[in-house]
């Protein structure tokens, strides 16, 4: 099991307002700290048009982290690929991989807020086909192919002989596909891409989806033995169980209710998305995430909570220790405990 730390969305929220230049300065400091204590990667998250200044441009922020660090990998968790121009993204991925000396982990997701699609004049209904199209272009650009060679290339875009330059350092840049539903798991499996499961999945569901990945890969003739199966988890390590309970859980609850309610991110047991207009069901869903999909407490508690993920086939955790409203000192202490007390106890599944 390996650990990345996340998710930085550069938010100045109602409960924790802060100027954005300060937030970005702290991002550099947090990245340096993450590198110092030994995390493999730091992950950014994308949304647009939300009141708190949520980060809309991950590759730009990635260039900044690359300049502040030397070993830490830079994860996009996730770039909402169908909302972008794939040519521009392919160029950006390769450029950031060069600037960072091959430290990019490129995670992509569909996105689900109508307004984000609407402002960009893109139909949300086309998001799956746009995702497939963009993944084809990324695969070709990673090889240094001209974009006319992409099978997804649409001829109405003009001259096809142009090269996407530069080429990346990593051959290829690792791509992670975020998956909430089964279609996304199958998409990743058919292409042999890494999987990034959601913080809305409990351990059992994560195991089912990883099984689905292996089955789909096998029938598509894809070798899934070296695939990285990642998952997002809310993780906070504290010396004091009482403090974690009294401080961190309410902080996470407030975060979940505000953001996920605002975006209708969580679903009830029938798969219906939940918003502010269903406060009781929303609260119930948020409590489910806190109870089942988070690991908050002393090192022993967190180890116990995360160990089960190993048995269902997860081999990478993006620990969502950054929950927006904590102080940098508290955050660094929790990161340090995670790296020094928890990660070694879960390192039994090694990577070559």
């Amino acid at each position, binding site marked *: 099991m390996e650990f990345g730390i996340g998710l930085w969305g550069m938010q100045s929220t109602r409960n924790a307002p802060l100027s954005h230049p300060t937030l970005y300065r702290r991002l550099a400091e947090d990245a340096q700290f993450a590198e110092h204590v030994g995390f493999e990667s730091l992950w950014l998250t994308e949304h647009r048009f939300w009141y708190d200044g949520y980060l809309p441009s991950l590759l730009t922020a990635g*260039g900044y982290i*690359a300049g502040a660090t030397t070993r830490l990998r830079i994860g996009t968790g996730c770039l909402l690929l169908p909302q972008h121009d794939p040519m521009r993204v392919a*160029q950006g991925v390769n450029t950031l991989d060069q600037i960072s000396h091959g430290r990019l982990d490129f995670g992509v997701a569909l996105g689900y807020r109508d307004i984000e699609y609407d402002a960009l004049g893109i*139909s*949300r209904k086309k998001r799956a086909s746009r995702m497939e199209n963009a993944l084809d272009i990324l695969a070709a650009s990673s090889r240094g192919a001209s974009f006319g060679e992409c099978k997804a290339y649409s001829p109405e875009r003009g001259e096809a002989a142009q090269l996407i330059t530069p080429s990346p350092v990593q051959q290829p840049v690792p791509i992670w596909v975020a998956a909430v539903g089964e279609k996304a798991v199958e998409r990743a499996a058919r292409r042999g891409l890494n999987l990034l499961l959601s913080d809305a999945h409990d351990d059992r569901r994560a195991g089912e989806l990883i099984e689905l990945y292996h089955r789909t890969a096998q029938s598509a003739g894809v070798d899934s033995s070296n695939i990285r199966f990642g998952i997002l988890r809310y993780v906070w390590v504290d010396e004091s169980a009482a403090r974690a309970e009294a401080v961190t859980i309410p902080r996470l609850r407030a975060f979940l209710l505000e953001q996920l309610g605002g975006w209708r991110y969580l679903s009830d047991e029938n798969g219906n998305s939940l918003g502010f207009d269903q406060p009781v069901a929303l609260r119930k869903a948020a409590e489910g995430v806190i109870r089942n999909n988070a690991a908050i407490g002393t090192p022993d508690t967190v180890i116990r909570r995360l160990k089960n993920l190993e048995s269902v086939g997860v081999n990478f955790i993006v620990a969502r220790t950054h929950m927006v409203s904590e102080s940098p000192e508290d955050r660094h202490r929790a990161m340090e405990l995670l790296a020094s007390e928890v990660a070694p106890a879960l390192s039994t599944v090694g990577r070559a």
Partner: protein
Amino acid sequence: MRFGLGPFAAEQAGAISWMEAYEIVGEAARQADSTGFDSVWVAERQFSADGYCPQPFIAAANIAAKTESVKIGVLPIAGLTHPLYLAEDAVVLDNLSGGRAIVVPINAASHERMAYGISEDDYQERYRETIEVLLKAWAPKAFRHEGKHWTIPAGLPEHTPIPSGTVLVQPQPAQFELPLLIGGFWDYGRSLAAEMGLPLVLGAISDNDALRSLWSEYDAVAPAAARRPKMLIRDVYVSANDDPLSEVADMVSYQFKRYSDWGMWQGDPADVAGLSRSSLIVGNPEQVIEQIAALDSVNGLDHLICRMHFPGMPLHQLLASMSLFSREVIPEFRMPDLPKQIRRGI
């Protein structure tokens, strides 16, 4: 006068790999930040075989992490894709640099336009519309935009309606007004800048002899009340050796060959002596001071952006040229009648 370093292109040329090319940008930016330069610049070109930086905001953000004070100027191509991508990249750069961003949208070369399937006429409209959207997107108000090429928000029937019919780009720029200047490398850009009262940057592709009339044409149309720093990009090389031009001749040819290939400049890129008279600032410190003073007296410059890194130039050569420039050239323009003992060192 203020002095900038760049625009950098981070191309793979000579023995320089892409990774090294970006390291050179970072190291030069660090030195610029601590030796009196006011700004560092990065430019965009797409589909260039040498890998000329195609996404300059990523490189600019990298510079921001490595510097404390210099302004960070970006010359992105406008009009190829949706303007909100450009608006968002720029506000993120402005915030992560603590309010140091300057944005100078430039025009696409024909190969870039054609790769996106855009006709020349359409391209001019798309460029103008992009500028209009940027001004709205960086203002602290929710907006809607209805243009020929883009409607923001689009209001597509399959989406949940947006009650206000507007959006507000987040985060807002760190600066109250994110500086927006127009890249004056083409006729349309220069006339648009004058018409909109936006400041203009003239490029290395405009000969010395052409500059005066280009500014005059601008002044004749632009509102007199508009504040407009005059910015100029020049290829600059300083060396204390006997024949500075010979030290960069091949690189200069490469540079102008590229301008020629992109259809942005006509001339003989191999005629380096001719180029040095018409377009370059090259020499020992005293000669460089004379050349800058001559340009200034004709054009009244506010900000000279010095492209001191030519394709394939190794880092040590760049840093040596920058070092001479900062010690022996810049002080001359910081005070009238500067004692020569200060410039030469006592």
